């Protein structure tokens, strides 16, 4: 099993596209959900995955530790998501800014219910980690590996993130 995986990586490094697809598809749930919690939309999650597989294909020769393929490619996926989000913001800016936003009356009611809205209010670096930890149920080590930050930082950000989220939702400490 282990051996087969390493062989597949070796073949992917030689430019075998089908093997590369197979490698990603074996953990398709993980990849897709990871992309989804960033993009919040199935279509854009797929877009980000397309971007990822291209980058993986172009750079896989540089991957030294074959066993780290999945966490390496997930880091790439997270970066692709962040790039796309940044680009999406730019598009909105160059378009027209709505003058009359009467929708905010309706939104007020949703806000009290939907945790996502509160998530948006807290700082990006906390939000990202909370989502990975709680929505995807990822281990601290896995988060550290994908985001390329120290384990201690992951732990402290989860702690602070939870406090901030509680503050935002108006929940008092018990």
């Amino acid at each position: 099993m282990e051996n087969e995986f390493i062989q597949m990586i070796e073949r992917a490094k030689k430019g075998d596209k089908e093997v590369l697809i197979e490698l990603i598809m074996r953990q398709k749930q993980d990849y897709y959900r990871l992309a989804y919690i960033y993009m919040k939309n199935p279509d854009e999650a797929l877009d980000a995955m397309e971007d990822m597989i291209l980058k993986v294909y172009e750079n896989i020769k540089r991957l030294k530790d074959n066993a780290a393929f999945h966490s390496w490619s997930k880091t790439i996926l997270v970066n692709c998501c962040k790039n796309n989000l940044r680009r999406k913001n730019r598009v909105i800016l160059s378009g027209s800014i709505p003058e009359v936003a009467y929708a905010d009356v309706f939104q007020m009611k949703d806000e009290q219910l939907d945790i996502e809205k509160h998530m948006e209010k807290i700082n990006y670096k906390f939000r990202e980690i909370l989502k990975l930890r709680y929505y995807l149920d990822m281990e601290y080590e896995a988060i550290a590996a994908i985001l390329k930050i120290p384990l201690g930082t992951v732990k402290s950000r989860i702690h602070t993130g939870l406090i901030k989220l509680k503050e935002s939702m108006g929940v008092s400490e018990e």
Partner: protein
Amino acid sequence: MNNIEEILKAKKLQVSEMNVPEELEGRLRNALNKNNQFRFGNRFRVYTAAMAMVFILILSLNYDVVAFYSKQLLGYDQVMNASLKQLSELGKGQPIGKSFTFDNQVSLTVDYVMLDENQLLLFYTIKDPSGHVDKNDITAFMSLKAFWGEYNHQSSQGIINEENTEIKYLASFEPPKLFEKNLTLKFSRILKGREDPAEISFTLNRNTAMGHTLKKTLNETIEVDKTKIKIHSILASPTKTVIEGSIQNIFELAKDQLNGERLRATDLTLKLIANGKEVERQGSGMSTDMKGMTFHCDYDPLPTDLEQLQLEMVNFGADHDVNQQFKLINDGEKQSLNIQGQKVEINKIEKVQGETQITFSSKEGLILSRVYLWIDGQRVSLEQTIMDDYEKLLDGTIIHTRTMRFLGAGDELKLDVQRMTYTTSYDKVLEIPIN
């Protein structure tokens, strides 16, 4: 609900129930297989949005349509105005006759070029022998590349023939600098999201260029409410007349921005009068950038027997920052608000099925462009404006009456006017010296 981790875990269940779309594998394979091609992403959408904005800025050119036969420019008579026809009759300009054909047999031919100090006019034809020229995929993104720079496409219009096999275009470009000789027209077609670029090169014959007929720095100022409109210059050439000016320089713009008193010009009408007759307007544009708020107005060429030239300020309208709140008294009486010197008359305030409806009237052209209502200390956005009614008074002014709907009702009402647009008419005339 107190335990936040419980809520987060509930959300996790939602996420883990999510299925991976079946198209995933196909899309990954597709992405890998087209990876050598140039990919259009969101960036393309940015350009499209920018392009659309440019087109909105350039007002349509209205040429009069008089059938006319012209030797040099066969088929272009419908897109030329009278003065251009005269010029082409006189043989002004330069025939080119170079073309490029794409692999689907659609071709672009540069027929003719006319150059003066205001613009370079490019006469070109797009042909599609299959009879679908109206659906051709050549973009309007064109430019003229030369050694010292790139000159942008400003506006164009074309006419399709009855067989739908060709379009004759007349396109206006920024005039190339004096020492530019070799020009390359860069254009492209979009095929399945890919850009397929092409170009046509030609040499400009400066002897056929026409220069200008009147060029003057004016530095005149016209005072309008709250600001001054500066007329910088006039440049008349055989193909058109351009007036350039500014509304605010960058310092004034920055100052107003900081004070929260910005104005955004929406309407500027300047009438150019030559020998007592109005010169037809071709278009105009306005932009705000590092140079401040600048504008240009384009008119037809001036008559050759010019004796008198005047510029008349007709209208100036702008969207102003107001940021003022007005307490509304709901006692059945009319209430008059003075908003930056503009009169807004509140006729009626009604509570209808839990909504507040405010009927008010003002001069035509006045718009409360960003308005809220505070109902008992809570801010409510405008839901809808209903029941438009225009009434013409004896003195000719038009009064516009309408009703704003706000969701919610209460006793204490405050109208929060953040922005307002209004237009003021003037009849100031500026004499332009012609010698």
